[in-house]
C-alpha cells in the first residue's frame, strides 16, 4: 500500500467522489422536506421538488399577471446589468488608480493611505450616506457595488503593478520610453490579466452588494425577488433563485477564466494553476 499522500484516484473515480457530497446533500434535503410536508402539507420552508418546478414554470415561462413580463428573465437581466456596470466601472477605476499608484511614487504617496482607509470601512454601515449622495435609483446600486469592491481592486492592481520586475521598467527606459509610454505599453497590458483575476476574486462580494442594494430599493432584480418573497417565506422561489445565482456566478467566473486564457496566453503560462 502506498502512503495516502501518494495515492491518486483514477479519473472516473475522482468524478464519482466529487459528486457524492452533492448527492448526500440532495438526499438530506429530500428527507427533511418529506418529513416536514408530512406534518404540514402547506409547509413553505422545505418545499418538494415539484414546487420548485411549478414556481419556476410560473416565473420564467408565464407572463406575470401584473406587468405582463416574464419575471424571472426580467430579474436576471436587471441584476446582470447592474452587476456588469458596477463591476465594469470598478475595474476601470481600479485599473487607472491602481496602475498610477503602482507606477508613480508621488501618486502612490498621495492616494495609497486613503485607499487603504476606505477599504476598511464596511460599506453596509454607510448606506444612508450613499443614498443621500447618489440617490435611490440605479446609480446607488451600482455605486454600492463599486464602493464595495473598488478599494480591494485598487490595492490589488497597485500590488500587481509594483510586482512587475524593475528590470522591465529600466529596460523600457533604455528603449526611450517616457513615463506615459511605460504605463500604456509595459504596465497596463501586463496588469490586464491580473485585473481579470482580481475581478474574479471580487465577484463574490459584488453579488453580495448587489443583493443588498436590491433588497433596499428596487422594483426588479434577483435580490429584490428573494427579499420580496422572503416576506411570505416562499422557499419554492428563493431556493431556485439562489441556485440560479450560483450558476450565474459560476458561469461568469468560467467565462472570465476562459477569456483571460485566450487573450493573455503569456500570462497563464507563468502561473501553473491559471489562478
Amino acid at each position, binding site marked *: 500500500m502506498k502512503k495516502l499522500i501518494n495515492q491518486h484516484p483514477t479519473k472516473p473515480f475522482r468524478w464519482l467522489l466529487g459528486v457524492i457530497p452533492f448527492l448526500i446533500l440532495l438526499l438530506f434535503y429530500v428527507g427533511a422536506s418529506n418529513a416536514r410536508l408530512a406534518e*404540514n*402539507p*402547506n*409547509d*413553505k*420552508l422545505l418545499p418538494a421538488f415539484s414546487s420548485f418546478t*411549478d*414556481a419556476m414554470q*410560473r416565473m420564467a415561462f408565464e407572463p406575470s*399577471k401584473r406587468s405582463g413580463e416574464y419575471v424571472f428573465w426580467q430579474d436576471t437581466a436587471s441584476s446582470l446589468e447592474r452587476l456588469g456596470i458596477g463591476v465594469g466601472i470598478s475595474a476601470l477605476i481600479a485599473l487607472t488608480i491602481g496602475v498610477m499608484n503602482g507606477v508613480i511614487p508621488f501618486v502612490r504617496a498621495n492616494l495609497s493611505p486613503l485607499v487603504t482607509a476606505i477599504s476598511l470601512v464596511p460599506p453596509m454601515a454607510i*448606506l*444612508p450616506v450613499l*443614498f*443621500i449622495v447618489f*440617490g*435611490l*435609483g440605479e446609480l446607488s446600486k451600482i455605486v454600492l457595488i463599486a464602493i464595495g469592491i473598488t478599494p480591494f481592486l485598487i490595492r490589488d492592481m497597485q500590488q500587481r503593478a509594483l510586482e512587475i520586475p524593475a528590470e522591465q521598467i529600466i529596460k523600457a527606459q533604455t528603449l526611450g520610453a517616457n513615463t506615459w509610454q511605460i504605463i500604456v505599453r509595459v504596465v497596463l497590458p501586463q496588469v490586464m490579466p491580473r485585473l481579470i483575476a482580481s475581478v474574479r476574486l471580487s465577484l463574490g462580494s459584488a453579488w453580495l452588494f448587489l443583493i443588498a442594494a436590491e*433588497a*433596499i*430599493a*428596487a*422594483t426588479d432584480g434577483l435580490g*429584490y425577488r428573494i*427579499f*420580496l418573497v*422572503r*416576506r*411570505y*417565506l416562499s422557499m419554492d422561489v428563493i431556493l431556485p433563485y439562489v441556485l440560479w445565482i450560483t450558476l450565474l456566478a459560476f458561469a461568469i467566473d468560467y467565462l472570465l477564466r476562459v477569456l483571460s486564457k485566450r487573450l493573455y496566453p503569456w500570462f497563464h503560462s507563468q502561473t501553473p494553476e491559471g489562478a
Partner: protein
Amino acid sequence: AKDSFKICWSIYVGWMPWDYGAQKGIVKKWADKYDIDIEVVQINDYVESINQYTAGQYDGCSMTNMDALTIPAAGGVDSTALIVGDFSNGNDGVVLKGKKDLKDIKGQTVNLVELSVSHYLLARGLESVGMTEKDVKVINTSDADMVAAYTTDDVTAVVTWNPLLSEIEAMPNSTKVFDSGKIPGEIIDLLVVNTETLKANPDFGKALVGAWYEIMSTMSADSAAGKAAREFMGKASGTDLAGYEAQLASTKMFYTPAEAVTFTNSAQLKTTMKYVAEFSFKHGLLGEGAPDAGFIGIETPSGVFGSDSNIKLRFDPSYMKMAADGKL
C-alpha cells in the same frame, strides 16, 4: 422538566412592552406561576421573526393581522391571535414631499415595504380617493433605510410606520396626506401563537396574557413607575421618552383586557379581515393554489370569513376574557 416555550418580538411601539416585561421579570413571574418557562427573544428584523415562527422555531410571535394571514396562515401553520394589543391609529401613514393632498399621488413613484401593511394602507388610501394601485408605481424599499431614502431627491412619496413616519414627517416640506387613523381598527398588532401548542398548553396562553396585562397596567399608569416603564421602552427602541410617547399617541393601545375583548368581538373585525384577505389575494399572497380570497378560513367571534374547512387564523378572545374577569 418544566414545559418551555419561546416567543419572539421585534422593535415596534406596540411590542416594546414585551421587552420591558422580559427585562423586568414580569414574564418570568407569570411563567413561574403556571410552572412553565417562557423565553422572550428579540429579533430585529420583523419579517425574519415571522418566518422563524412560521418555520416552527418559536411558539409565538408579534405581528400584524395582515402578516398573520399571509405568512403563517398561508404557510399552513394554524395560528391563533392570543392577544390583540392595539391597532394603528395614525401610526402608519402616507407622506408626500411638496404636495399636500393624497390625490396628488397620482403618477408618482411610492416607496414602501411591498406586501406589508404599508402597501395595504396605500391601497385603502387610493381606494378612498377613487384610484387604484395602477395609478402609482410602487418601489420596494427596506424599512431600515426608509428615512435615509426619503432625504434623496428621487423619493417624493412614501408609506411607512412609526418611528420612521414621524422622522419623515418632521422633515421640511413634507405632509402626511393619509394615515391609519382614517381606517381605524384595520391594522392590528397581535401576539400570535401556534394553535396546536395553545390547545395542548392552555397555561402558556394564560401566562402570556397575564403578563401582558400586568405590563399594560404599569405602563399606562400616570405615575412615576409608568413613566419609567415608558422611558425604558423608548430607550430600547432607540429613542427617548418623548419620542416614544409621540408614537404611543398614534397607537390605540388596549390597555385593559376588556377593551381588547370588545374590539375582538365586534363584527367590524370580520369585515376588516375580509378587506385584508382580498388585498392579499390580489397580490398573490395567499399562495398560488388559492382560487379566491376566502381560500384560507379566518375565524372571528362574529363568524368565519372564507373556507370553513381550511381555518388557519383564529381570533380567540377567551384568554383575554379570563384576564378581564380576573381569572388568571
